[in-house]
């Protein structure tokens, strides 16, 4: 299972290495480590985000090991949605059952609409919706887009995708 953890380290030499030790001990496979030394917290600690794969039964052991060594664990949890994409819809977004549109994505289990903004200039005029969708992987992002294209055709909505969604 893929998990992510936000830590806060003391700004002293050796802290980062020490924070990685339990991942080795409990056979975690580190995917990424982001160390924000230039973005200290008001307390003067250094935020670090670690994404890793591990048997979920070991997560508590890692947390305990870190805390025993004076490292603050701000958040630890499952990180299922690792890809995201922005999409814009134009048309009668609300009156074509926006709840249903969102549900078509959310009900997949592999993707969710995480952010939504609406602009409704007038009652009879087309409205616009911005959606940010997060999904478990690139392939699932692609599947979500094709669901939206389908919904767009069905509900007469213009679906505007970002250019970075796919290679040319």
């Amino acid at each position: 299972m893929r998990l992510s953890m936000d830590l806060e380290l003391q700004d002293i030499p050796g802290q980062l290495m020490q924070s990685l030790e339990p991942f080795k001990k409990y056979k975690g496979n580190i995917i990424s480590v982001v160390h924000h030394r230039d973005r200290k917290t008001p307390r003067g600690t250094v935020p670090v985000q670690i994404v890793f794969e591990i048997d979920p039964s070991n997560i508590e052991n890692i947390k305990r090991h870190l805390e025993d060594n004076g490292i603050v664990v701000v958040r630890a949890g499952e990180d299922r949605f690792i890809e995201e994409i922005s999409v814009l819809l134009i048309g009668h977004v609300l009156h074509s059952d926006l709840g249903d549109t969102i549900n078509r994505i959310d009900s997949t289990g592999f993707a969710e609409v995480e952010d939504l903004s609406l602009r409704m200039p007038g009652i009879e005029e087309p409205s616009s919706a911005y959606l940010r969708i997060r999904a478990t992987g690139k392939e699932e992002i692609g599947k979500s887009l094709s669901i939206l294209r389908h919904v767009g055709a069905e509900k007469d909505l213009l679906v505007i995708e970002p250019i970075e969604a796919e290679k040319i």
Partner: protein
Amino acid sequence: MREVRISLVGFGVVGHGVLEVVRRKWGLLRKMGLDMKVVSVTDINGTLFDETGIDPQRLHAAKTLEGIANLDIIGKEAIQEVDSDLVVEVTPTNIVHGQPGLGHIEEALSSGKHVVTSNKGPLVVAFNHLREVAQDNGVMLKYEATVGGTMPLISLIEKNLVGNEILGIRGIFNGTCNYILTRMMEEKYTYSYALTEAQDLGIAEADPAYDVDGIDTAGKVVILANSIFGMNARYEDVSVTGIRDITPEALNLAWERGYHIKLIGEVPSLTVKPMLVPRRSPLAVGGTLNVASIETDLSGTITVTGLGAGSIETASAIVSDIVSIYTSRQVDG
């Protein structure tokens, strides 16, 4: 000094531009060893012929050849009759049947004349056929001005990126759409208001369908697909969505989230549709600019941008094509 006898077929905005650029760059062209002479100009009224080369200033103020033409021949007949090395074909474009340009280009190539054109229609309808006719007759067909106007795209790929595999091309190929979307975003204009502004400035036609419905962009996508990717694409193969349904609210919403909305054409996927373009992307150019990103296997992604239309700008691409025909002939031995 190499004499280049040019027949200009089509005397509209681009035709005037060609005469003007040849006049302005006459000295520079001579330094390159080219003595360029426009020996004939043809429009629907007839042909003006002068064996010693037509003085462009003589035609500067003329809108058409009415009352100026000295030969009563037009079209294919004029191409046949006039003794020239190269035909510049700049008649009005028709993307459905390609005529009259298609007939003109066929006639010129089969009578052993090089052809340089800015006319998309014939290439959209019959690119592979025309390329074969050119090869069979040992002459060249150049068409840089058909895609992206003055922006060097085809020559960049064929010359500078030679050896690269071209994986894809994506870009803004219609300055009118780009202008309308830019104004809608900047001024919060409605689509119809931005369109009337573009029409008043001469950026959009009275009938804007050709531009705003994505037809022009799709034509360019077809030309790129056939010329660069060796496909046998037709206009009907392109999935096309235009910009009429874009609203200022949508542009504004996109902007707040870090995006522009641009009409993007893509090859080889053969699509034309409005897309979200990140604000910091090199494709995020405004106004009437065109832009293209070329994805290659060796050189990564290369982006070029430039003016997509205009009399002198289009003519500059045509004159560059003419020069390249006479300066890049194959070296034997």
